């Protein structure tokens, strides 16, 4: 079929005009956006993008930031530690270290611990019988909670429901047990507990306080159903060889930056409110008599004065005093100290 000149012109204007107008609009918007992207440019550190690519992208929030992008931004601009990604583990930390050009450092695995030894059917003192909605959140909002201790575990298992990894179980007494092998330190239970009893603690620090009561000693003893309340006596604080424990509001607090994991505090606590997971299993120091040159360095670093001996003579460890803190081992210039 042959178009006449007139028909051709009419078709061209029917198709051409819309194409021209929409095309012009698109071109105009594109131009404006292109200019705007230069004018309103916000410099983004390329390392942020690289770190986002390395991170798992699950946006789980275990690092405490709003998603992986937030964490990447904080690493580059906020000086955040690079080993906080729990799902990514040491591999991701190593890759981030490469991008940031620094040492990966030790991936510090954390686990959740409950700072209360009460909460079971038999070891809780109840103020009233609670029959409402069976969640800790609701129970806590009714007259300050059904248990006598205003700081302790409500026992309705919000933490258990929050845990996605089946790491929390209940024993026959209704007490919660956290399986450290399954715990990924995602922090879901920390968020779920309305009384802030759960905390993430490094797995290498096996000593923690099983109480959150800020009541005065006598009151804490009276209301606690488990007979292991922290009464704020300060014995642990006095005994701690590295001053890692402080008492605030009648409650002991361990500074894990300083803690050397010796377990001394757990042995002196009069109410047994400090739990030492390694109790009785710590190895004691022993000095190899052939290698010891009597430099006295080990005796100086020993926090409990368990090492004695005169200068340039063989030193010995008093095993009844040694708490197995291993402070002396790396200090010995001859590597003469072993834990046995």
């Amino acid at each position, binding site marked *: 079929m042959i178009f006449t000149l007139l028909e051709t012109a009419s078709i061209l204007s029917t198709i051409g*005009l*819309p194409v021209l107008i*929409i095309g012009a609009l*698109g071109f105009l918007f594109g131009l404006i956006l292109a200019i705007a992207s230069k004018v*309103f*440019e*916000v410099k983004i550190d390329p390392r942020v993008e690289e770190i986002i690519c390395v991170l798992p992208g699950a946006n789980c929030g275990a690092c405490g930031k709003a998603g992986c992008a937030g964490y990447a931004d904080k690493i580059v601009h906020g000086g955040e530690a690079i080993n906080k990604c729990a799902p990514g583990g040491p591999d991701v930390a190593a890759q981030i270290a490469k991008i940031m050009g620094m040492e990966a450092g030790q991936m510090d695995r954390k686990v959740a611990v409950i700072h209360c030894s009460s909460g079971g059917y038999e070891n809780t003192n109840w103020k009233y019988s609670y029959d409402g909605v069976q969640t800790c959140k*609701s129970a806590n909002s009714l007259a300050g909670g059904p248990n006598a201790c205003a700081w302790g575990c409500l026992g309705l298992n919000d933490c258990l429901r929050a845990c996605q990894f089946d790491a929390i179980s209940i024993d026959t007494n209704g007490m919660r047990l956290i399986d450290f092998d399954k715990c990924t330190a995602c922090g879901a239970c920390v968020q779920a507990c309305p009384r802030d009893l759960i905390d993430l603690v490094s797995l290498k620090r096996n000593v923690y306080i099983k109480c959150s009561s800020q009541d005065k000693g006598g009151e804490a003893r009276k209301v606690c159903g488990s007979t292991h309340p922290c009464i704020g006596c300060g014995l642990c604080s006095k005994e701690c060889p590295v001053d890692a424990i402080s008492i605030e509001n009648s409650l002991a607090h361990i500074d894990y930056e300083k803690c050397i994991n010796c377990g001394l505090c757990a042995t002196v606590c009069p109410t047994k409110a400090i739990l030492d997971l390694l109790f009785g299993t710590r190895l004691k120091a022993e000095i190899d008599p052939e290698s010891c040159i009597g430099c006295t360095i080990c005796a100086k670093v020993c926090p409990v004065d368990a090492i004695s001996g005169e200068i340039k003579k063989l030193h010995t460890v008093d095993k009844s005093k040694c708490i197995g803190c291993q402070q002396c081992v790396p200090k010995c210039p001859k590597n003469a100290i072993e834990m046995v």
Partner: protein
Amino acid sequence: MGYLGEIFVMAMTAIFIQNFVLARFLGLCPYLGVSKKLDSALGMGLAVIFVMTLASAITFLINKYLLIRYDLMYLQTIAFILTIAALVQFVEMVIQKNAPALYNSLGVFLPLITTNCAVLGVAILNTTAFRPDGVTPYNFLDSVLNGFFSGVGFTVVLLAMAGLRMRLEKAELPKSMQGMPIALIIAGIMALAFYGFMGFKI
């Protein structure tokens, strides 16, 4: 009825009687997706108000001076989508540069709005809407106001939904009803309640 009265009627219509979510069933995705927490619902709502108002203004101009003039009304949808997408991108860049705090609080919601059908809906409905007298089509100011009030209506409903869902978190529900199923049922009940506004004569 003075112009202020007409604005009042327009506001009531956009917020309650012809609410975008519950009467026109537009913008349901963010309505169900971002209504789990009050603060994020508020962020989304404010972003929608902002974009709807701006989009109403720009699309009115494009409609009047390009599409109607060259008799290209059939290109309305594609032209409006192009405009809204470009507008949202532009606004995002400006906010990121000039108000980083606002940018962070709006976060992912701003780009999401590009594909929110309520925004396209308000732009298209503005071109077919009439003033309360039933004869005069919307002028520029009417369109902008309608866009603003529609955004307010969206925000009101989103906030109500977020409030309800936050309370529902504590309720004991059968497992099969938790989450989205109960949200959809509530959405239906809310829509029924808003249907009652249809009887208003103002």
